[in-house]
């Protein structure tokens, strides 16, 4: 078990290193450099700035400095926001994105399990057909369309009732999170519903279910302790990529709902070509996502008995 975890953690470290290196190379391949075109400047100012940011040093030295800073957890200072460090941006805006992300993942996972089980139980009957049509829509409609449509619908509702049923945009109160979390989670929820349905259908007619039924176990107990428990396993394997999808989906949803999260900052930095923020946030997001995927993998190792059995062989 320990070996399994260590193997995954090592692979994760290599991946994060690769992400940081690719980011460095990519950002240095950008035509021009961050200082050019910032403002009218004399060669002296330019020279001083280059010195300040270390841009006059050879590339491998810059790379070493960059990696050293990354290891110490220092992502540098924003180019466009006055005197603001990337760490500061992460510290103040990441928690918002994280809360939204966790809520969206919960919506997606719980919704996926619930709807997936329902469709499998009502297989080929009306609820199944209706839900599967909705699922196809959920997979096909981009999250920003859901976000905008829900905003429009809610604005109309609020107008109709003459009071704020749910806030349409902004952040701060718990109610603000309802709409963004739903729209952010809906695509992944549809995907998980599909997966849950097929994995549930495999389990529904398994021999051990028939045995349990023959023993006279009540259907509720069969559902919870036999069907659900076994059908959920494949869902956990895709939870890592699902978290990644929700995190990057947050870029758009946060912008549409005017939520001051890290995703919105990232999009702004990208639009303003704020180099240090782009580099810092890419590496940060990359490391975060790799961490999530590894956590899910290790969690899966703990939950799935088949991996424990195979540990001596591994």
């Amino acid at each position: 078990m320990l070996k399994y975890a260590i193997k995954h953690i090592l692979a994760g470290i290599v991946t994060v290193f690769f992400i940081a290196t690719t980011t460095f190379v990519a950002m240095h391949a950008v035509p021009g450099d961050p200082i050019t075109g910032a403002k009218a400047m004399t060669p002296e100012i330019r020279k001083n700035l280059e010195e300040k940011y270390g841009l006059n040093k050879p590339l491998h030295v810059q790379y070493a400095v960059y990696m050293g800073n990354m290891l110490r957890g220092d992502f540098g200072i924003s180019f466009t926001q006055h005197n603001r460090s990337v760490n500061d941006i992460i510290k103040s805006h990441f928690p918002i994105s994280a809360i939204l992300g966790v809520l969206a993942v919960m919506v997606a996972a719980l919704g996926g399990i619930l709807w997936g089980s329902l469709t499998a139980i009502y297989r080929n009957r009306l609820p199944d057909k209706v839900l599967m049509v909705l699922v196809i829509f959920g997979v096909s409609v981009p999250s920003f369309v859901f976000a905008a449509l829900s905003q429009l619908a809610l604005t109309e509702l609020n107008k109709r009732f003459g009071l704020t049923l749910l806030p349409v945009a902004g952040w701060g109160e718990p109610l603000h999170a309802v709409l963004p979390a739903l729209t952010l989670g809906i695509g992944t929820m549809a995907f998980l519903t599909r997966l849950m349905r097929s994995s549930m259908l495999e389990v529904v007619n398994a021999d051990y279910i028939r045995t349990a039924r023959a023993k006279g176990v009540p259907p509720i107990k069969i559902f919870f302790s036999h069907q659900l428990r076994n059908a959920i396993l494949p869902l956990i394997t895709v939870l890592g990529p699902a978290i990644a999808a929700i995190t990057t989906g947050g870029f758009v949803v946060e912008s549409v709902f005017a939520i001051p999260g890290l995703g919105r900052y990232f999009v702004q930095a990208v639009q303003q070509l704020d180099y240090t923020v782009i580099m810092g946030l890419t590496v940060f997001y990359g490391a975060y996502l790799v961490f999530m995927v590894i956590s899910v993998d290790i969690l899966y190792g703990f939950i799935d008995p088949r991996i424990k059995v195979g540990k001596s062989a591994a």
Partner: protein
Amino acid sequence: MTTTLLETTLSVDTSLSAEVFAPAIKTVGVHSLSRPSLSYWQDAWLRLGKNRQAITSLVIIALLAFFTLAGPLLWRVDPAAQDLSQISQGPGFGTSAVVVSDTEVFNPTFAKELPQGTVSSAMALDSPQGLTTVSAPSTVAVQLKWDPVSGATGYVIYRKDIKPKRASDIGLPLAEIKDPKQLSYQDQLTLEAKPYYYTLMATLNGEESGNMTQLEVTPTQALKLADALKVSSSAQVGQKIGLPAHPFGTDYLGRDLLARLMAGARVSLFIGFVAPMIYIALGLLIGGISGYYGGRVDLAIMRITDLVIALPFLLFMILFRIAFGVGPGESGVFPLLVALISLSWTSASRLTRGQVLQLRESEYVHAAKLLGAKPLYVLIRHLIPNTMGVILVSLTFAIPSTIFTEAFLSFIGMGVVPPTPSWGSLCNDGIQTFLSHPHEFLFPAFFISVTVLAFNLLGDGLRDALDPRLRSTE
């Protein structure tokens, strides 16, 4: 009981005669096929034909192809032509407009004398009387005039675009007039042919009195002569002329949305088709090499694949897109293609490798080799056709996901560059005015959703038809 099974068998052998070994009489026609034999692809096509969803999707995709390829030939409107007299028009056919003179200069009416009297505070100012429009209000200009209020040092005008619910609901300030003698105002601020609610208040030294007068004005659709001459060369002032029709409305610069959707479809579908074809071909090549050679080459390729797969996709799409850069005058399609290809070949490569490894060891390939088939024949006759099904299915699923990615990136401004329309960038333009003019967002969003939906359903159908083993449990 002493006779063993062997002995029994041997004893039977002795009774065999030569006739037993004579060739049997051929009975022609008994085992002939009652139906024509079907090839793999014919069978797949038949099965796809039975899938109503897949056929509907195919029809939708055919319509989209028609819309994209033949559309611009039938609807000859320049997607980049701006018409600032028709900004954010809703969808509809053939509106008409009255031509008004563009040389006419609005002369504000000034009172010669002001009513005598002073007031102690702004609160004491009366509400203005006689608020009316001067000439017929049109979308070119709404001209207001009113009677002077005694003691006022100026006036403020507010305008609201939707029907106010309360009296205090007066909208946004339009103008502040500091000359008490000026008793008229001309509003030329993006007028549309719909009701506007003007509110006028007198002010005392910049301080507003609470006593207001409201006026509802519905401008008629009008066009300045100079603009009208562009539409019809015989336009005259006072004449009513038909405006160019915009069945899907116009955007915030008065560009025809239908033409833009067609042009955007070309960009979105081009990226959606070309990128998956290239990266799946690349994956096929890399995965094929990996699976065919095996050993160290395989190991090295698979490690690289693992690393590329581990990169967070959208994050690196954005990063690569910035790194490749977009020069002036470029559309940004090429960098997007390069970024998509360099990040997306991995899944096709893994799939092909797995297929090749599996098929190489399959019984029918062994059988073919045993019967003396040459490697090239095995490759062409068995390996490639049997991978094609899986590859075709993954291509069908790669198209919608690429369209999705393009839309996402263009929506955050990291896709194609502004003058080039794509469905994603049209959505990005449309969301800015979404609450007031939803059609600008809804049409491109609808096209993205329908296209992705159609390809997803077709993919499902193809998977069921081509590969019964992968068939979703239904």
